[in-house]
């Protein structure tokens, strides 16, 4: 396989007056798995379809493996795609589906068979050659779809929300297999999803999109711990948004005052003064009342299995908190004292 890089230079896609994608630029390195993540309607699927060539950009240019492919139609691009609906041809059996791309290229029939069977072996689906797609389970259809895309040895492989039609257990298994396959064959994979946990589990890097633009790009950990703005903070997991004051700013750090608490945090070039802070639910530590910190009262408590979820009323805001201490649940109305952990607290904007 010859994995290729992808580059978007100021790409826009307009439908009439409406911008589905508005002036986005990014680079995807060869051999990596990058996820386009965002809420529905953010332009992530349009972006994916522009990589495939199913949509042509209104302006800007797209490079694959360094070559300009902006105006090249989908059938001429060295890109394969696994569709959300799998899009298996219902009148062809498994082998014909997988071999279709090769047949179109007029490969001799024995070669088509051999390569299709090899691809099916790669995805771990053997012995179903003669079945029609309607006779397969969802997970098997998914594998056929992947094999059909792989068989052409594309330099870029695209996945459009590939797990959305599977049940929860199969979803985890398939995403592990996709990640495993990508690393085994060192493919360039672009993956679209709106599920933040799925994105973090499979990706080398994540491009978070919002309102037709790129909100932030980075490694999963960076995005979670250092969200650039309120949207990314909220979309990458739960976050409490509270207002604090930034003081004593030096080269990298500043003191953030939150009611009675003060934490020293990287200030991320925000000016001193009032700032908005994102606090992850697990970054709030619950202590006994009077143990120092910020006083609060448990307002709601929910046991959801592995963890406890609390809503705790404090002077600055109602905070959503996750606690691992399932053995010692707190009752509604119980007084507590809160402190903040080092990770999971980020100043995100001047307020």
């Amino acid at each position, binding site marked *: 396989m010859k994995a290729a890089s992808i580059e978007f230079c100021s790409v826009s896609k307009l439908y009439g007056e409406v911008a589905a994608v508005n002036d986005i630029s990014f680079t995807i390195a060869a051999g990596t798995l990058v996820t386009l993540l965002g809420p529905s309607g953010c332009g992530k699927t349009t972006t994916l379809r522009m990589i495939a060539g199913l949509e042509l950009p209104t302006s800007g240019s797209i490079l694959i493996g360094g070559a300009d492919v902006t105006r090249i139609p989908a059938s*001429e691009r060295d890109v394969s795609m696994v569709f959300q609906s799998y899009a298996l041809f219902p009148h062809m059996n498994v082998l014909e589906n997988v071999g279709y791309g090769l047949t179109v290229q007029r490969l001799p029939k024995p070669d088509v068979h051999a390569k299709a069977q090899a691809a099916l072996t790669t995805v771990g689906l053997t012995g179903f050659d003669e079945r*029609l797609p309607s006779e397969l389970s969802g997970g098997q259809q998914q594998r056929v779809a992947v094999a059909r895309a792989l068989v052409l040895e594309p330099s870029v492989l695209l996945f459009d929300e590939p797990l959305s039609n599977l049940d929860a257990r199969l979803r985890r298994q398939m995403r592990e297999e996709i990640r495993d396959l990508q690393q085994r064959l060192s493919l360039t994979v672009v993956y679209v999803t709106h599920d933040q946990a799925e994105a973090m589990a499979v990706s080398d890097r994540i491009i978070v999109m919002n309102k037709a633009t790129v909100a932030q790009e980075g490694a999963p950990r960076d995005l979670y711990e250092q969200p650039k703005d309120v949207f990314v903070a909220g979309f990458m997991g739960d976050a409490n948004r509270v207002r604090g004051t930034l003081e004593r700013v030096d080269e990298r750090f500043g003191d953030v005052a939150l009611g009675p608490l003060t934490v020293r945090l990287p200030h991320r070039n925000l000016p001193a003064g009032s700032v908005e802070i994102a606090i992850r639910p697990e970054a709030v530590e619950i202590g006994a009342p009077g143990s120092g910190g910020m006083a609060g009262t448990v307002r709601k408590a929910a046991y959801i299995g592995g963890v406890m979820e609390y809503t705790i009323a404090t002077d600055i805001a109602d905070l959503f908190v996750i606690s691992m201490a399932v053995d010692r649940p707190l009752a509604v109305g119980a007084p507590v004292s809160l402190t903040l952990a080092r990770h999971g607290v980020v100043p995100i904007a001047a307020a």
Partner: protein
Amino acid sequence: MSFDRKALVFWLAVGAVGYLCVPWYALDASVLSTAWLRAFTAKTNAPALLQALQHGRTWLLPIGALLLASAALLLPALDRNVRAFSLLALGGAGFLYTFAQGFAIGAQGWSFDALAHAWRPFATGQFGMGLGAALALSAFAMLFALGLAERGYFNGDAFIAGSIVAILASTAIFTFYPVLNIMVSAFQDDSGAFSASAFIARATQQKVWGLGCLSGGPRCGVAWNTLILALICGAGTTALGLAFALVVARTNFRFKKLLRAMSILPIITPPFVIGLALILLFGRSGVLNHVLEIAFGIEPSRWFYGLPGLVLAQLLSFTPIAFLVLIGVVEGVSPSMEEAAQTLRANRWRTLVDVSLPLMRPGLANAFLIGFIESIADFGNPIVLGGNFSVLATEVFYSVVGAQLDQGRAAALGLLLLGFALAAFFAQRWVLGRKVYTAMSGKGDSGLPTPLPDNVRRVCYAAAIPWIILTVVIYAMVAVGGFVEQWGRNYTPTLKHYIKAFGIETGANGLLWVGAAWSSFWTTVKLSAIAAPVTAVLGMLTAYILTRHRFRGQSAFEFGTLLSFAIPGTVIGVSYILAFNVPPIEITGTALILIVCNVFRNMPVGVRAGMASMAQIDKSLDEASTTLGARGFTTLRRVLLPLLKPAVVAALVYSFVRSMTTVSAIVFLVSAEYEWATTYIINRVTNGDYGVSIAYSSVLIVLMLIIIWIIQRVVGTRRLGRRAGVGPGVVPQLGASAA
């Protein structure tokens, strides 16, 4: 992307053959007879190059030059933009020049005096275009399409570009150009000069808009007649159609299957057969008059001819169409809405009036407009049953073929008819474009439909049961009518009508087809069989492009295609006579014009069947095929066509059947050599020869039934797993009557 060199070579070769090897002009005999090969260089038979060099038709030289110049584009070193631009320029120029010279130079040299004054006159004229010109024109059009693809239009797909150009060009030539012609003719006075007053005089005649019937006079104008009939027919078919739909969807009526089966009757029945059978029942020597005379001594009269007969005939003919439209609407009303109304304490009557009927309102309006359009386009019933009550469709016909022979009047009346049809068409688009309340899926709703209130159910039964009985009686009439000596006078069983129409004798040289009907029968079958595949291919291709591709000007393309469907057959017939009677396209009186007419009249069926079934195939299948390296044509052939096979077969059969039973347009175009089955029957009817007419009609109906039955047996057994829903359901929606 590699340039589509093979396509360019192919179309250049087509152009070269057209220019160098085959007769440029239309021949008196068929080009297939190859008699022209023996006198290859003659003034009538020669290809274009010889015509130019030997016979002084030098205006054909630039066509060759343009083709030659296009061949230079095969050079591999050419820049892509230069090649694209040259293809567009040469293709466009060639197409336009070839047509322009055809129009400018007629049989006697220059066609227009102004041109003759400006240029030196030619010693010779030219004939209508033939095979050679057609090939050259196709080549130029396709060069233009290749240029479009090369410029990056339609995703650079040459097949798509070529299809769009071909559909546009053929629709323009065979639909919009004739209609334009009718407009021009309507505005020309007798000397051929443009005159608005001539049109106004024709369109506002007392005979057209007179209101004599209101003030006790004998009759109203044809325009009023047409409108009155259409309003009654629209309202009546909608009411009856709704009653039948409610019976089928909301009651446990025992003969539901029979009602559904009857809905295919209008498809297989030639449009005048209902009228004919009604004559046997209610006409002067019909059964009813007979009974009345015997029982009460009432003198038989022609009371049935005119409005009463027409209303009954059209209600019988078009109610099944309204039923097909409304059954979808009734079934689309979500049962859970009705259940919600009932939990809010509404009884069944209130639920129907307050919830269900308002939800169906757009569907009812649509059904009304369809009935209206069918009625004004109907030709077959008025011509056998109209009597003194004339409508626009028949009046146009009599203006052309009758003693009047006034083409200007025919054009003006045709234009009026077209105006009515288009007004209804736009009203229908407006109705359908507004909010649709009914659920499209019909699935995922676990509610049970509310039964009808008892009195409503009784009303529906009261409408449905007599209708079923009458329909059965009518078809029984048709079945029996051909086997009696003379209807109304002598009911002795006989085979003489069948022998007269379809007699076969064994002579010295084998079988002799002595029956009077054989000639028109075989012409109809043969030409319909030629037209059907062309119709199906063009229709499917149009449907594919409309549903699967997005390009600039698409909405205009779609609108133009839909608009051409709304043109009544009578208008098409008149306009074909006006447009194709003179060079450059001179095909009146040939088999070709009958084929072409049927193809473009029936295309809507193919397009609709195609669009309906393609809507059921997820677009991601095409995209998957595209990302796997298949271009437009491969995707269509390997992915869509196999899935669409039932729809393709249905379109094929349906267009064949409609060709067989068409009247309204074809009646203008038949000739002594090429007679159509339906026009032959109508001629027999107008001569009072009911026996042969009925015999011939029943043969046609039985033949259609057999064909449809065979096809459903063959197509009905395909297994496609999940997507088996792609069925041969064809619902005629608008102006698509076989009339």
